[in-house]
C-alpha cells in the first residue's frame, strides 16, 4: 500500500481539505505539505511576473524528498492543491498526476457552485469526498 495524501489550501494557505491514506503518520504529511507551500508560493509569484495569459495550472513536481514526491496545482483563484505520494510509487507518472488534479479541480468547481458553500470554509461535501476516495482507491 502506497501512501497518498491530498490537501487543498485556501488562497491564504490554510487547509480546506485534508485526506491521507493510510492515516498513520498524518502529522508528517502535514509538515511536508506545509513546507511545500514555500515552493508553490514562489512558483505562483514567478508566474505573476511573467504575465503569461495562458497560465499552466499544474505546477509539477514541487520538490523531491527522500520519501515523498510532492506535486502542486493552483487554480486561478489561488486555491492550491497538493498531492503527496511515496517516492517508491512508480505507477503514478506525471500524466496521471495531472489528470488527477484536473479531476479534483472539476469537483472543486462543483463544490464552489453550491450556493450554501461559503468560500474559505473547510470542504465537507460528500460528493467531493466520494470522488477523492475513488481516486485514492484507484491509485493506491
Amino acid at each position, binding site marked *: 500500500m502506497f501512501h497518498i495524501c491530498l490537501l487543498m489550501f485556501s488562497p*491564504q*494557505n*490554510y*487547509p480546506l481539505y*485534508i485526506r491521507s491514506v493510510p492515516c498513520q503518520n*498524518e*502529522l508528517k504529511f*502535514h*509538515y511536508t505539505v*506545509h*513546507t511545500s*507551500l*514555500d*515552493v508553490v508560493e*514562489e512558483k505562483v509569484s514567478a508566474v505573476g511576473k511573467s504575465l503569461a495569459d495562458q497560465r499552466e495550472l499544474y505546477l509539477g513536481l*514541487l*520538490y523531491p*524528498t*527522500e520519501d515523498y514526491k510532492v506535486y502542486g496545482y493552483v487554480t486561478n483563484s489561488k486555491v492550491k492543491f497538493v498531492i503527496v505520494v511515496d517516492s517508491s510509487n512508480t505507477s503514478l507518472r506525471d500524466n496521471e498526476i495531472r489528470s488527477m488534479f484536473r479531476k479534483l479541480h472539476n469537483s472543486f468547481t462543483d463544490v464552489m457552485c453550491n*450556493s*450554501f458553500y*461559503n*468560500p*474559505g*470554509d473547510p470542504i465537507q461535501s460528500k460528493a467531493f469526498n466520494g470522488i477523492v476516495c475513488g481516486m485514492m482507491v484507484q491509485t493506491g
Partner: protein
Amino acid sequence: MAGSQWELPPELCCRPMAFVALTGLDVVYNAVHRAIWDAFCANRRADRVPISFKVLPGDHEYPKCRTKRTSYEWYIPKGIVKTGWMNKHLNLVPALVVLFYELDWDDPQWKEKQSECATKVEIVRTSLQGRNTKVAVVLIQKKTPLPPGEDLVASERASALCSSCDLSGKSLFVLPHTDHLVGYIIRLENAFYEHAQTYYYTEIRRVKSHKEFLNKTTHQLLFVRHQFKMAFLSELKQDTQNALKYYRAAYSLVHELRAHETNMLEIKTMAGFINYKICRLCFQHNTPLDAIAQFRKHIDLCKKKIGCAELAFEHSAWMSKQFQSFGELFDEAIKLGLTAIQTQNPGFYYQQAACYSQDRKQMAQQLCQAGTTYPSPDPLDTQSGGLDFYGQRPWRQGHQSIDPTDPEKEKLGILALQIKERDVPHSELIIALLSNAVAQFKKYKCPRMKSHLMVQMGEEYYHAKDYTKALKLLDYVMCDYRTERWWPLLTAILTTALHCAYLMASVKDYVIYCMELLGRASTLKEEQKSRIEKNLFKVLMNDIPEAESECDQSSVGAARSLWTDRMALSGSNELTVEMQDYIPFIQCKARFQSPSFHVDQPIQLQVFLRADCPHPVSFSKLTVSLSNQEYNQWCVVESSGQDSMTLLPGKPRCYNFSFVAKTEDVGKKVEVSRCLYVCMMLGGDSGRCVFLSWRGAGGDAASTQEALQASRSSRRWGRGNEARQELDWDTLTLQHSTMIISRVPRICVRLSHQPPALTNEMFCISLTVQSQEDVVAKDVKLTAGLKPGQEAGLGQTTHVTLDGSSVCDDNAPALLTDVPLGDLTPGEKLEKCVYMKCVSTGPRIFLFHVAYSIDTAVEGRHIVCNCHKDETVTVETVVPFEVSVKFVSTKFEPLEQVAVDIPFLLMTDILSSSPWPLLLSSSSLQLLTVTSSTPQLQSQLQQVVLQTGESASECFCLRCPADTSSSNTVATGQYVVSWRRYCSNADSPLIQTTVTLPHVILESVPLYIYADLPSFGRVRDSLPVRYHIENRTAQVQEVEIAVDPSDAFMFSGLKQVRLRVLPSTEQQMLYNYYPLMAGYQTLPQLNISLPRCPTSSSPALRRFLPQRIFVKPQGRQPDDASIAAA
C-alpha cells in the same frame, strides 16, 4: 568526540598537492636559509604552483619501500585501502627531494665541497631506496651568475658536479642569493613542479602496470585499490579530469565487490570516500548537476545496505554523514560562486542528514539497552591504536571471508560498539544539522520549511531535556502556524510545548498552553481537552497538575518536585496573560452599542464572553479599561460571594455596562483599551489568580479571519430565526470606540440679509435666535464671522463688528468670538445685527455659532450640557460701481498731454453695478499739483440715486500751474465718492470710496493764443473777436499772423501782420467778423507761425482756438403782422 568515527579523514578532504621535500636548509640559525624558506612557503597565492613544501634534515629517513612483488599469484589482499596510504603520499613520500648546498663556482675549496655535496646526495638517495623520488641539487651562491655560456669555469664545474653526484643537468639549479629572491624561487618551484609531475606520472604508470597480474576472483579488492590510487595520484599531479575518471571507475568497482555482513562497512566507507571525491571534483569542474546525480546514485545504491542488524544505527550515522558532507561540499561551491535555487540547495541535504541522525538516535535507543557492562579486554583496541584498512572492524582486521572468525569475539565487539553509541550526544548532532539547514532555508526563501525545522529543533531540545531552549524555539514558530491557521500542526506544537512547560514547572507557560489547547483552534479530542482543563483548574487551585502522558518517568519525578517547590512559593500566584497573541479558550468581544453617543445619553457598552472548553468556567471579575480612566468604575462586574459567574461551554454571555459621559469629553473618543477578565478559582485565598487581558475590544490571533469569513457567510440569512434567540458569535463585530458628541441643541437660529455684499460696505446680517428649550438656556454666546479654514487672504480683507453706526476700521477682526447674549428663557427670541465689511470681492462663508449651556439630568445625574448650533451662509461680494475718469480740453477733445497753465476739463463717470439702488451722497476732488480753475469746487452729484446700470457724471475745470514743470508726468489727486445703499437706514454710515486719478503728462507751450468771442453770432451782425497772444518764453517772439478768407464771414482787421511779443506779455488782435450765413460756421482760420521757434507750428497753436461758431439767423423784428401773414 564520539561521532568522529564517521568523520571523513582530513587527508581525504584536503586538496592534494605535490609533495616536495627541501633538505640542507638550516631555517633556525641561518638567515639566508630562512629567507629562502619563507620565499617558498609564506604568502602563497593561488597563482603559484600547487606544491606542499616541507623542510627535512639531510639524513631524514623516508618510509621504507617494501620489496616489489613480482607475482600476485598467492597474494590475498586484506582490505581495500590502507589507512595510512593517503597521508603517506601527501606528507611522507616526496615526489622530489631538493638538496640545498652553499657553493660558488669559484669556491677555493671546490674539490672538497664537490665531494661533500656528492656525499649528501648519496645519503638522500640511500634513504629513498627503491622509490622513484627524484633528487635535485640547488647551489646557493653569493654571486650573481654570468649569462649562460660566458662563464666557462661554471659550465665545466657544473658538469663535473653533475657527474660526481650522478645527476642529470636538469636537476642542478643555481640560486643566487641576491635581490630578486622571490623571482628566482618562483622559477625554481616551477621546475620542481615539472619534476613532481613526472614522478606522479611514473607512479600512476607503475600502479597501472600491476593490473595485468591481477585476476578477478581473488584480487577484486586490488582493482578498487589501484583505481583509487591512480585517481589520488592524478589529483596530486593536478590532473583532475583523469582523477575523476579513475574515481568513477573505482566507484563502480566498489559496488561490484561481493558484499556481505562482515565487509559491508568497509565497502560503504570506501564508497563514501570515492563518492565524496567525485562530488568534490564535479563541483570543482563546475558541473554541479553531475555531482547531484552522482550523489543520488550513491544514496540509491547504498540506502539498503544496512549491514549488521545489531549495528543498524551505524548505517544511519553513515547515511547522515553522506548527506552532511555533500551539503558541505554544495555550500562550499556556493561560496565559490555557484548559484543554488529554492528546490535544490544545501539545506535539503542538511535536513536529510538530520533526519538520518534522528533515525540513528531511535535505533540506538532500541538496540543499545542499558545495563550491560563494557567487555574487557576492549575488543575495539588494536595494537597500533588504529586500523590498518578503512572501514574494518578492530577485532578482525584484514579478515575478508564471509563468516566471522570468532562468533564470541564478534558479539563482544558489537556490544562494545552499542555501549559506545549510548554515549553519543545524538540530540546535539541533530540540532547542529538542523540549524545548518535552517540557515540554508532562510537564504533560499523557504519560511515554512524553516519553521518546520525549527519545530524539529525544538522537539530535539525537548528530548535532550533542554526545555528552556525548546520552549523558546516552539514559541517562536507557533505564531507562524497560528497566522497560517494550520490547526493540526499548531496543536501538535502546543502539545510538545505543554510537555516542556510541565516538566519545567513553568506556571505561566503551562497556563497559556493549556488555554490555547482548550481553545477552538486545538484539534485535540474532547477527552484530552477535558483532562487538560482539569489540570488547568488544578494549577489555578494551586495544586500540582497531573503528569502529561508520554513523558518518561524519571523526568516526571523531577517535575513533580519542581511543582511542589513552585507551589510552596508565595507571592507568585497572580498571572496576567495577554490574550490577543493566542487563540485562547475564552473569547471576548466588546462593543459600544453605537459609534457615537450624545452627551445626554448614557453610553452603552456590551462585553460578550464565550468559553470553548468542555467544562464550565467560573470567574470572579470582569473589568473594562477605557481610554478615560474615570469611566472604569462603571465597567466592572464582580461575583458576589458564592455566586460566581460561570461561562457554560459554547454559550456566549453578554454583560451590559452603561455610564454617563463627562461633559469635558464632548468631541473626544472613548476607547476600550483593554478587557480584563479575572479567572480566579474558588479555592479561596490559596488559589491562583489569572488575569486574562485582551488589548482593545477583545479578539485574538484568529478572530479577524473568522469575522471576515462570517461576513461572507451566506448562512447568516438562513439562520435568522435561530440568531434571534442566541447570538451568532461569529457575526458579532467589535466596536472598540465611540464618539461622545454634544447634546442636540434646541434653539432656532435664523439669518436674514440682502446679498450680495458690496465692497467696503457695512453689510448687515441680522440674526434671530429663538429658544425651544424647556428650561433657561444660560450663557448664550455668539461667535460670528468668517468661517475659519477658507482661503488664506480672506481673513485680512474681512472685518466683522456689531457696531453698525460707523464704518469699522481695519483693526476689526474677521471673526467675533464669544459675544455674550445673556440668558434665554423658554420661547424667548433675540435679535442681533452683525456687520461685515468686505474689502475684496469674491465669495465668503460666514459662520454663526450660537452656544449655550443648559442643566439637564441623565439617569438621575445632573449635568451641565453645552449645546451649540451652527449656521453658515455664503455671501458674494461685488463692486458697487465703476468710476471712469478722463481729461479733455476746453473744447471737449480728449487730451494726451496737458499744457501747463492752460485750463482743461476732468470728467468723471460713475456706473452703478450694484443690484440694489445706491445713494450718492456727495463727491469731492482732492487735487494735487493741479488747481481748480473755478474758485469753489462743488459736487454736482449730491443726493443722486443710481439704479442698476445707471451712471452719473461730473465735470471739473482744472489748470496746471506754471511752476510745476519739473517733471514730465504728475499725479493729479483723488476722487472721493461717499455713498450708501439707498434702502438702508438714514443713519447708516456713508462709505467713502476713493478713486485715484490718473497721472497726466505735462507739456509747456511757448506761445499761447486764445480768443474772446461771444457765444454765438447773428447773420449780418457784427461779431467782435479778440485774439490774445501770450509769450510764455523768456525771449522776444516774433509772430506772423495771416487770416484766410472765409465764405461765411466778412471781416475787418489786419489780414496779415508780423509782430513782436515781449517775454511774458501779451498782444491783442481785434477782428470784427461779419457772419453771412446761419448755422455752425467755421471761423476764418488764423495762420500763425513763429520763425524763431519752428517747433510750434500753426496747427499746434490753432488747437487752443475755437474752430466754429453758431450763427443765428437774422432776428425778425417783433412784427406781429408778418407772423400773421405767414
